[in-house]
Structure formats: C-alpha cells, structure tokens
C-alpha cells in the first residue's frame, strides 16, 4: 500500500519535463515553414498551365518540356557540369592531402597557418572574392596575355570549394582511430601500402561526402561566376539570372526545380555517407 502511494507522486514528478520550454516547438515549426514554403510554392508553380507564377490554372509538364528542349539551357548545363567537375577534382585532391597532414597529429609548425589558409575562402564575402578574382585575371591577361578561358572559372571555383571539401574529410579522419594503421605497420606494410589499403578505404566516405559538397557549391555558385564569366561561359545560375531580367515565367521555375532537386539528392547522399560508420 505504502509503495503504491509513494509511486504516484513519483510518476507525476517524472512527467514534469525539465527540458520543455513553452512555445519553442511552435517556433521550430515556424522556422521550417519559413525555410520550405517558398521552395514548395516555386516547385508547385513550375507545373502551372499558364504563364503565371502566382495564379494556379491547371497541371501541365509543358515548362519542363520547353526547358529540356532549350539549346541555351543545354549549353549552360554542359558548362556548369564541366566547371563543377574540374573544380571538384582539384578541390578534393587538395583537401584530402591537406586533411591528412592536419589531423591526428601533434601540432606542428605551420599547421595553424595551413588550417587558416585552407579555410580562408569561407571568411571572405563572396562579392569581395568575385571582384578580387576578376581583377587578378584581368591583370594576368593585360600583363602576360594569359587567359584560360573557361579554365578561369574552374580555378576560381576550385578555390572556394577547398574548405567545403576539407571539413567533412577532416571530420571523418578525426573519427578514425590510429590502431588499424599501426597494426598494418606492425605487419610490415610500407607507409604507402598502409595508406592505400587501410587509411584510404577508411576515409573514403569522408572524401566522397566532401567531393559531393564541393560539387554542389560549385554547381550552385552565382556571384563569383557572374563577375568572371565571359561570353559563351554561361552557367545554369547565370542563365536563370538573365532570363529573370527578361521576365518571370514558369520555365524559370521548372529549371530552378531541377537544380533544387539535384542539390537535394547530392546533399542527402553526402549527409548519409558522412554518417556511415566503418
């Protein structure tokens, strides 16, 4: 009897949730609404029958058909893809090597500097990077006559992709413990064999996650590309920008929706890869 009497208030006390704050769940829901509602509306109106992007007339896939058939969009997509692929490869190789040298060791002379240099592109406002790079390539052309054409864009993208590739790779490496590599060394593996057969396979999910993020960041870049792109170097975001100036239409919504879906798929993949354990 006594124990039952004692357990009732205890149960009530346990029901008192000390973590709860009233109204915070509502704010979280509001945040999600703010973040997702505009995107959802944009996607919804890409299926609109008429030219309006705010008055619903009926369902149609016409705008997607038009977007896919558009020669300019195809060219822009090809440019975007080329630039993003090259930038991703450069950034991922640089970031992987740098991450190997700056993780899981005691601090060494130059480590902090390296870390800061690698992450610098995150600290500089995009518009500043954009005009600085514009000046740089203009000077390079004026002084030495060097221009890499679309390579200018690839290099510029590679620079700001480095930290985006570096951070997930570094996170992965820091989660790995040293014992497996030590075991390989005990079994007379050379440092290269150890790297090739033990370290690299273990860090691969991090590398893939980093490369995916670098690709997404390059593929979506607008400001820097806008400043640097010469004629014939239109990327998808630049194409969207120029069509916006000509007027809003569901075709822009359709193109935007495709880009959004690509980003969402890649980021989801990167997120899942980054979380996967051994």
């Amino acid at each position: 009897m006594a124990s039952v009497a004692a357990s009732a208030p205890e149960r009530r006390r346990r029901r008192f949730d000390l973590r709860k704050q009233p109204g915070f769940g509502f704010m979280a829901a509001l945040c999600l609404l703010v973040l997702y509602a505009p995107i959802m509306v944009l996607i919804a109106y890409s299926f609109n029958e008429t030219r309006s992007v705010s008055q619903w007339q009926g369902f149609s896939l016409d705008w997607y058909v038009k977007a896919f058939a558009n020669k300019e969009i195809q060219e822009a997509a090809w440019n975007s893809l080329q630039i993003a692929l090259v930038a991703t490869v450069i950034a991922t190789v640089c970031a992987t090597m740098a991450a190997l040298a700056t993780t899981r060791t005691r601090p060494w002379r130059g480590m902090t500097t390296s870390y800061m240099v690698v992450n610098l592109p995150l600290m500089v406002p995009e518009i500043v990077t954009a005009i600085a790079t514009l000046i740089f390539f203009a000077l390079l052309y004026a002084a030495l006559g060097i221009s890499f054409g679309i390579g200018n864009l690839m290099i510029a993208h590679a620079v700001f992709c480095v930290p985006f590739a570096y951070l997930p790779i570094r996170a992965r490496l820091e989660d790995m413990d040293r014992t497996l590599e030590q075991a390989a060394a005990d079994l007379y593996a050379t440092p290269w064999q150890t790297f090739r057969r033990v370290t690299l396979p273990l860090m691969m999910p991090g590398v893939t996650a980093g490369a995916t993020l670098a690709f997404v960041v390059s593929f979506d870049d607008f400001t820097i590309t806008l400043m640097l792109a010469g004629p014939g170097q239109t990327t998808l975001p630049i194409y969207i920008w120029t069509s916006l100036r000509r007027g809003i239409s569901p075709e822009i919504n359709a193109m935007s929706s495709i880009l959004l879906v690509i980003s969402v798929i890649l980021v989801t993949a990167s997120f899942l890869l980054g979380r996967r354990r051994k």
Partner: protein
Amino acid sequence: MTALTLGEVERRRLSEAEARVDQAKRSSAARQQRTRWTLVAPALIVVGLFGIGPLLIMLLYSFLEPGTYGGVRWEFSTDAYVQFLFERDLFDETKLLFTDSYLLIVGRSILLAFVTTIICLILGYPTAYFMATRPASQRNFWVFLITLPFWTNLLIRTYAMFVILRDDGIINNALLNMGLISSPIPIMFTDYAITIGLLYAFLPLMVLPLYASLEKLDFRLVEAGFDLYASRGSVLRRIIVPLSKPGIVAGCILVFIPAIGAYVTPTLMGGGKQLMIGNLIALQFQGARNWPFGAALALILMLVVLIALLFYTRNATRQQAALHG
C-alpha cells in the same frame, strides 16, 4: 680496475647508441615535417595563388587611378579612399566637400545585417533548443532538415521569396481575396524585402551553432534550478541562455558576415533601388567602371568583417580563459 673500464666502455657504447637513436629520431622528424609540407602544398598553392593573391592585388589596385574604360592607370593615388568620404567641388578641383552618400550605404548594410541577425536569433534560438531536446535518434534528421535549404541555390531561393512577396504574388493575392486589404501591400524593393530575403537566406547559419552548443548543455544544472524553485522562464534566462553564449556569438557572427556582404539578395529583393555595399562594389565593375574605388570599398567591407571576427575570437578566448582559469 678492469671492472671500471668495462663500465666505462659500456657507458660510452650506451651514449653512442643514444646519440644514434636521437639522430634517427631527428631525421625521421625532419622527414615527417617534409611529408606534411608536401601534403598541404597543393591546397596552399591553390588557395594562396588564386585566393590570397587576388586579395593582395586588389589592395594594390585600390591605390591606383581609374582607367577610362574600366581597369586602372598605373599611378599612385589615394583618391579611391578620399572619394568614399568627400567629393570634389565642381568649380574648384582642390576643394573637398564632405559627402555621406557612400557612408549611408555602408551604414544601411550594417543596420540591415544587424536586424537580420537579431531576427534570426529570435527565430533560431527556440528552434535550436527544440532540436537539442529531441530524442537522439531524431536530432540528426532535424539537423538535416535545417541544413538542406542552405545547400540549395541562393539565387533560386531568393527568386522563390521574390515571387511570393510580389504585388501579385500569392501572399498579396490571398489577402486581397480574403478582403483583408483593398490594394496589394507594396513590400518588394524595400528594406523590409531585403531583410526578409537575408533572413531566409542565412537562418540555417544561426540555428546550427546554437544547436551545437545547446546539445552539450548539462541538464543537471537546469534540474538544480527547478529544485531551487525557479520558474521555466527564469531557468531559461539565468541558466540556459548564459550557458549557450558561445553558440549565440558564433551564430550571430556566421549570419552577420554573409549578410553584410550580400549581393544576390539586395539586388533581387531591393530591385537596384535599395543598395547595400555589395551592390555598390559590383557597380564599380559594371556600370560606373571605377575599379580602384570598387577595390577600396571591398577592403572597407573586409575591414568590417575583420572587426566582427576579432570580436568573436576575443569572446571565444575569454570564454576559454573563464573555463580553465
């Protein structure tokens, strides 16, 4: 006698061996250091040459004369910086008149970025707290939901907001249809529109660091507060918020820096009427063709960012000193 010599020999051998080990260690340390530099070299070259190099050239350009059709003339001049605060008298070239038009744009940028940061904090803090108090299995999903929009194209997201807020966008249409307003609320191309755009763009950057620090919160301290008869409000104010201060500072910096340098949002949402410093910089390379002035403005923007960063590091080190001291 012999025993002593033997001992001596032994000792000498030992010290020789030690020296050899030392040398081996030193040379292996040197080799290790070489490997490290080789590994970081590509990243340093790419970012150094094409990231830091351009910034230095930009600094140089800000001290040159503008060329007639863009570009520069190679003559030293501080005009770009003088131009920021003064304009030359029309009739007397040597007279300088104070002008606040550029200062006002910088001021507006700081103000808009600041307001955006505060609203992000008000919206983001409860969200981050709510995420941090979910069961562990749900938290990662919440983080994913909040991060996802950040990785999608900023131009497209801003366009999405633009379409909604327009005079014949769905918000105004809905309000008109319900009879709440008789004519559309003209929100586009105002400072309000820019703030909404910035808020929408950078909200995830506020939530994530807040979440990171709230997730580590020791709830025994909260329990102690309740045991001492504190209400929910005072527990929040006197325990939870002070403990998550590092996250608050980090979130505010992460939102403030991109917000003050924003280009896409004020261009689209402000319609080129309400300029922020990012637009002003871009203009010097598009229509106005005054490269040195653009470079100088970019450096002024970098200075503001640097001050914000210094504020952050000073705060972080003080926090650490408080923890360890």
